[in-house]
């Protein structure tokens, strides 16, 4: 019995908690991709860099706040910097739309042209971020590091395995829940949100009903900027902030959006967790887990790891391929914002 409890604690500590945090970050990222897809109808390759830019803006504000001696006590100061970061990112994203995308919208250009333009935006933004903050690793988390540590848990429970809950994990999950609830309330309950859904469902009909397309697009960008900033900052708090990771995050984010069904917010959230849990479950070394659950004779010699951690992109990719082959519309048939 005790070894079974140990096994569960082990999984919670190294698999479930990290996957919950990572999944929330991916879900927020995928929501941004899905929103832009629903309203502007192209896959935004610049989204990873929007996250990066948002996180950078937050870091800069956090440093400013820290230097003024402001802090949130046990919570990271970055949370206080979020609104300012979102405002700056939204301004940048709206400017990008004005300078780059609005022209192609007027031309009614093919989606692939938008896609290429978004790749261009991705690189310009990446360059700007590196120019401002540099390519190095940045840590900006402060406040309490743990809700409870592995040692405290061991003393409390008397188990051999420790369970630590880092505060960033809890903050990430809670923030994601609040943000998603607010987003759904906005989309389903407010007039503006409903007009966005109408526009996404049927552009022509929405125009006939007097919905202002420019306003819908503007709001979609602002929401995307907010989601991206929050996702990027949470990712940076949870791990660390490095400009080049965001290009690699693009693949899991797209995978999440597609698994759930592109254009469908519920799907994006489910997709985020599917990708995160499979990525961590497949690259997890099960040796210790098996030693708790199996009789000693059956425990394997190796790490009992399905795939080396370096192949975590491959997991997103395989998920993507399977979805494309089996159910191209995604789990929650896409295209209904």
């Amino acid at each position, binding site marked *: 019995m005790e070894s079974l409890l140990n096994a569960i604690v082990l999984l919670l500590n190294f698999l479930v908690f990290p996957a919950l945090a990572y999944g929330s970050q991916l879900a927020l990222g995928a929501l941004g991709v899905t929103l832009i897809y629903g309203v502007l109808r192209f896959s935004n390759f610049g989204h990873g860099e929007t996250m990066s830019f948002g996180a950078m803006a937050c870091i800069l504000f956090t440093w400013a706040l820290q230097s003024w001696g402001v802090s949130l006590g046990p919570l990271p100061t970055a949370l206080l910097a979020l609104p300012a970061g979102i405002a700056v990112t939204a301004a940048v994203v709206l400017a990008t739309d004005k300078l780059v995308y609005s022209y192609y919208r007027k031309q009614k250009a093919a989606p692939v042209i938008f896609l290429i333009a978004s790749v261009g935006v991705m690189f310009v933004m990446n*360059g700007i971020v590196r120019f401002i903050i540099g390519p190095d690793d940045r840590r900006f988390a402060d406040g309490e590091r743990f809700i409870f540590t592995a040692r405290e848990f061991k003393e409390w429970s008397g188990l051999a395995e420790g369970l630590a809950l880092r505060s960033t994990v809890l903050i990430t999950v809670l923030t994601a829940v609040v943000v998603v609830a607010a987003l759904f309330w906005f989309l389903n309950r407010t007039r503006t949100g409903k007009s966005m859904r109408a526009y996404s469902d049927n552009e022509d009909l929405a125009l006939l009903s007097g919905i202002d397309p420019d306003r819908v697009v503007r709001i979609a960008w602002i929401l995307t900027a907010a989601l991206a900033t929050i996702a990027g900052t949470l990712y940076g708090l949870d791990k660390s902030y490095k400009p080049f990771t965001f290009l690699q995050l693009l693949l899991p984010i797209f995978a999440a959006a597609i698994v759930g069904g592109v254009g469908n917010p519920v799907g994006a959230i489910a997709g985020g967790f599917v990708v995160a849990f499979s990525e961590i479950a497949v690259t997890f070394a099960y040796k210790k887990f098996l030693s708790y659950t199996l009789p000693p004779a059956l425990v394997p010699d190796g790490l009992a790891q399905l795939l080396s951690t370096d192949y975590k992109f491959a997991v997103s990719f395989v998920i993507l391929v399977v979805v494309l082959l089996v159910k191209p519309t995604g789990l929650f048939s896409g295209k209904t914002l």
Partner: protein
Amino acid sequence: MTETTRAYLSFAVMALLFLAVGFVQGWSLALAILNLCLISAIMSLGVNIQWGYAGLFNVGVMGFAAVGGLMAVLVSYPPVAEAWAAGGAGILVSGLLAAIIAAACYAAYRFMRKGQARMWTISAIILAGYFIIRIAYDPAVDAIESVNPAATGFLGGLGIPIIISWAIGGLAAAGIAWIIGKISLGLRSDYLAIATLGISEIIIAMLKNEDWLTRGVKNVIGLPRPVPYEVDLQQAEWFLNLSASLGMSPVDFSSIFVKLCYAILFTIVLLVILYLSEKALNSPWGRMMRAIRDNEISANAMGKDITRRHLQVFVLGSAVIGIAGAMLTTLDGQFTPASYQPLRFTFLIWVMVIVGGSGNNWGAVLGGFVIWFFWIEAEPIGIWLMDSLTAGMAPDNPLRLHLIDSAAHMRLIVMGLILLLVLRFSPRGLIPERTGQQYNQQQ
């Protein structure tokens, strides 16, 4: 000014730029830039075949180039006999097992009826097969990687002339493109972009981690060359006479001579591919591809199988990129998986095609030359610019230091801006695509 004169003029300006670099910064550097320009031009021809002919957006150029590079290693590096003895059998057995499993999956796919049962059977075969392969694979990999890890630690290659790898690199890239195309072509166009982005990341991850095959981040250095070595040249009688008659020191001239040999080889490949591309583009096949690109629905109504034609052109373009990738590794004489960066290998090539003129092979070649030239020369120019902009500040001013440090990142911004500006204001590029009407006017 007609478009033909503009094309000639652009190439003439490019030639003048090379002469300028030769006189100012030295001929060795000018040739080094030229060689990479030639390879870039081939890569950009490959992307042009995909994008310019058929409108397919490939974000995985880096992956196909890296596969070509790997083939250069696998073809030319001498086989490591000890490693083969230690783990070769295990690797062959796991390869055979993988083939059997693939065949079993295919059989299940063919002979079972579509539905849940088939899906679960295939999943079960793959899962069981994975564990069976690992039984043979893991010990073999450990054995190979522990054979003299400081010098080899991998299986090595076939030990045949590296020039053959150029063709094999193209074939390998084509094979991977076929698989990717099979999965994602025929679906919405964004899926190809996302799938190619994914496969290129996975290929790079494999190159970095499968040490038994590629030596991973330990890199493979000292690949054999298709051209003579400087040291040998400097001792050859005829070479000493030649350099004396040119009035250059043998050491300087040997480096120029070697680069010149590469330049000749690369030019031959470029001309062959360019000739074939032009022939293809101006044939009924090329016109069909452009008809599909411009209006899929009407081309389909005319009886063209769009998915198959897309697959064909995607495979062809990727093969050209693979050839260029193998050539690049040949030129470097080493294989360094960590040097494959999406910026350099995917994005830059795209800028070349868009700037040069998508749909026009000459444009793609010109784009390859122009963009690579400025990519190399941007750094000295950027540093000089930052230096003179901040010249008024104190030498230890933090802003000045930051700006000079960041000059390298300016490349990203500049290349991104070039792409966006050309796409917006001159989407047809330096040498625009020629339409049917223009052909008629010429004849």
